[in-house]
């Protein structure tokens, strides 16, 4: 039982990094004139997806019996997170831009790691 909660804790921690990171140290490009590029909206979307994952992780910890379904539902959210920067929402067209250099790879890794945690959670709950 306790072991099945570990992935939820990992998910929660990673989601917090996504939420805080997307607005601070992993934020998209800041334009000199204050205008927004598409990467700004990608950053917002990533924060939203991070929030969704965080809530799902909390749901696992609160409603332990429903964890199989909740873990499963986190996986498509993670897939969205991986696809959002660059595929679903465009980023700046120069790979030396901050959104491509920092935000995109970091977010893909964070959402992939969250997805793996969700997958492990799903598998361990399925076993029980």
């Amino acid at each position: 039982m306790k072991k099945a909660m570990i992935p939820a804790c990992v998910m929660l921690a990673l989601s917090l990094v996504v939420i805080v990171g997307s607005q601070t140290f992993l934020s998209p490009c800041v334009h000199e004139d204050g205008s927004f590029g598409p990467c700004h909206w990608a950053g917002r979307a990533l924060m939203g997806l991070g929030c969704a994952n965080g809530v799902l992780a909390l749901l696992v910890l609160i409603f332990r019996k429903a964890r199989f379904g909740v873990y499963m539902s986190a996986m498509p959210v993670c897939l969205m997170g991986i696809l959002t920067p660059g595929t679903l929402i465009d980023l700046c067209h120069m790979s030396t831009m901050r959104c491509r250099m920092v935000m995109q790879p970091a977010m893909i890794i964070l959402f992939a790691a969250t997805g793996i945690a969700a997958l492990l959670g799903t598998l361990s709950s399925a076993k029980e």
Partner: protein
Amino acid sequence: MSKTFSLSAKNLIRKPGRTAILALLTAFLALAVFGGSVVVLSLRSGLNSLEARLGADIILVPTEAQSKVSFQNMFLQGTTGAFYMDASALEKVTEVEGVEKAAPQTFLASLKADCCSIKIQVIGIDPEKDFTVQPWIARSLTKELGDMDVAVGCKVEANVGEIIRLYEQRCKVVARLEATGTGLDTAVYCNMDTMNALLKAAEEKGVSHKIESGSDVISAVYIKVKDGCDIDAVNSRLNGHIRKATAVRTRSMITGVSDSLAGVSRTVSGLIVAVWMLAFIILLLAFALIIQERAREFAVLRLLGSSRRMLSRMVLTESALCGLLGGIAGVGLAALLLFPFSQLIESSLRLPYLMPDAGKTLLLAAGTALLSAVMAALASVAAAYRLSRIDPGTVLREGN
């Protein structure tokens, strides 16, 4: 062999904590070796690529751009720069004794493009005369650059066939160029006619680049010196012959870069050696501790008929497997940091940085994992020797 191998494998799988700690130590070792090697290799190929792209012995730039610094930054970091001189400078260059080839280039910094908040460097070349950039462009584009055609560096995210707007002029992307690891990757290339049209459009936008005479302008002349001629002598002749322009030896640019590269290489190598030694010493200690913990287990194996050689082999197999596991994990972790964040590393180093190709990288990864296995096995040699020499009778009685 396979009998002891399966027992070693079981020991590793069924003692996950012990395995994880040993693997973690070798993972650090592998992380340092693989990460460090990739960075150093990337810097070396970056330098080679820079040398190939500079390709000229001497570059002539307007005195105002003597700003060798700004010119150098264009190559190294892709910063934009625009400086002009009269196009007649090209003819004057060809008059100088010892000059074999001379190719002009014209630079223009774009206004912010639609995509990005930064400026892009536009470089106009003369495909017939060019001998530096053209061979590189030819690898990605079989025909010549037509009017209002552009070839983009690999870091400009525009696909072939796409239209990009530069000073409100519609330019068609006809090729994306291979990576060079230099500032050239963030630039856009066009022929001289297109460049003149862009210069005109820029003029209309209020971006002045005209020089007093009002004639055609160029930004730099790339010069190749005839074989056997003294480059320094040609350089001096150029400086004496052409006014308002300065001839710069490319060697001086490359020397600067290679000095920085040597510095970075030294730091990285020092770091690799330090991590290695530390990891190796900790591994030695870890194996020494494990001897204490496992003496009884090996005494039992001994009385069940294992020879000393079998026990040594078992210890070495276990540590090598652990090392391999750690090596793979370390390489994986390094890859997770190096590849997605390569652009960030390049920007932070401010040096030409060209990642090695997939084949070389895989070879390096496999070599590192193998090296980790060998190092772990070496660290356990003393432990293996001591465990194989234990006196089972004494050890089994002590445990009671």
